[in-house]
């Protein structure tokens, strides 16, 4: 009865191991050369699995929320004190921001500045996360049907998380900033010095292509520069933490490990977009 159980290679077990090893290596080679059919098959399969993962991740999220709530219960007093202080500070900053906003509008009007395009967004839930030796990606529960497209920026309330790299009809894969293949144009918020932020699969990211003697210092805030027209400018990215071996290291504001819901921005730069998106889809800009 069980003898016939499902090993379709049952008659040739001797060849099963080398055959499957060869198959695995073959698939890796196809993935390496970015075979479009391999990519599309994977996107479709994730699409099929996405509802299952979504349902499964809900109890996990509920448990985590409970753990977090219990944790918060114990330090509610300290947190309350800290929040009061922060609120006072923020009220002050709000007044400053209003003042600056009004001034900025005036100056922009005086100079006839071109208005930045507005951005629409879709709120998504992060349902899957991977942090292996190869990649740092996340899966979200929205896709083409919700207007998600390759190249769009993904942000949390703290800052940018990454960019969309694969889109199925109801799921999408996000390349996190910490991934080895992630490169985004950034600038120092104060000095406007441009650089490129690169991931290396570890938790810290680094600045590459920063000009020698560029005005960068420890503690500087980084924002997206919007160069290339794919990402909206001014999204908070992270803070410069130090310099190791001539390379500036950066701690990101948004920790993907703590984010359950994120927003995917539809940043429409008129005229530039179709070509830019295609380039993103083909991996040219990554």
């Amino acid at each position, binding site marked *: 009865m069980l003898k016939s*159980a499902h090993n379709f290679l049952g008659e040739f077990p001797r060849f099963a191991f080398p055959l499957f*090893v060869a*198959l695995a290596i073959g698939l*890796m080679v196809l993935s390496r050369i970015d075979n479009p059919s391999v990519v599309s098959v994977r996107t479709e399969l994730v699409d099929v699995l996405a509802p299952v993962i979504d349902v499964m991740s809900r109890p996990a999220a509920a448990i*985590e929320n409970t753990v977090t709530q219990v944790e918060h219960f114990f330090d509610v007093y300290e947190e309350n004190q800290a929040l009061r202080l922060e609120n006072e500070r923020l009220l002050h900053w709000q007044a400053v921001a209003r003042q600056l906003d009004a001034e900025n509008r005036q100056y922009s009007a005086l100079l006839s500045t071109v208005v930045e395009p507005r951005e629409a967004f879709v709120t998504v839930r992060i349902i899957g996360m*991977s942090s292996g030796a190869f990649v740092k990606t996340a899966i979200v529960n929205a896709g083409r049907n919700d207007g998600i497209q390759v190249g769009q920026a993904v942000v949390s309330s703290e800052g940018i998380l990454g960019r969309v790299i694969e889109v199925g009809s109801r799921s999408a894969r996000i390349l996190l900033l910490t991934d080895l293949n992630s490169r985004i144009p950034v600038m120092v918020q104060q000095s406007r010095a441009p650089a490129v932020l690169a991931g290396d699969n570890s938790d810290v990211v680094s600045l590459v292509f920063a000009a020698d003697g560029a005005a960068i210092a420890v503690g500087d805030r980084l924002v997206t520069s919007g160069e290339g027209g794919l990402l909206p400018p001014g999204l908070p990215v992270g803070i410069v933490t130090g310099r190791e071996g001539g390379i500036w290291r950066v701690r990101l504001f948004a920790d993907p490990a703590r984010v359950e819901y994120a927003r995917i921005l539809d940043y429409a730069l008129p005229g530039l977009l179709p070509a830019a998106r295609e380039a993103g889809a083909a991996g040219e800009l990554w």
Partner: protein
Amino acid sequence: MDATAAVRRIRQALVATAPLLSSLVLVLLGSMPLYAGHIGVVMPQLGVAAVFYWTIYRPDLMTYSAAFAVGLVADIVSGAPLGSTALAVLIVRRIVLAQRRYLIGKPFQVLWVGFLLAALAAAVVSWCTASIYLFRLVDVGPLLVRTMMAMVMFPAVAWLLARCQVMLPMPRAITLQRN
């Protein structure tokens, strides 16, 4: 075909696929975002644990084809190059199959140490394939953290799979060519 025969067939199919299905569920569980408090992302590869367990107790049902499928689904979900986890899992099955008689029927601690070695072997395979694939020496840190995490979670995984295993009828005899 009468009704009892149909029921028996469904039962047989369920029994034959139970190890595969339970492993796939664990792979999906391992891909969940895990953001408990201040720990950060540490997601173990539970597929390796499942393949390890089933290769020891039901190698007739956790075949190379099943192990390959488990690895492939893990790759699809994690976004790693297709075949990379599959390769690691195949090698784990091969090693465990050869060492099965030293592990079967032993106290749980022995099994646990066995799993540590298997998980380390899988990590080494992953590290090598990643380094060749990306053409650079990749950071060992995340891999080690994941292996340790899988280690910590192994008792829970083994307990769950044991609950699943006792529901399966015993095979008359596991005749298996050790290849």
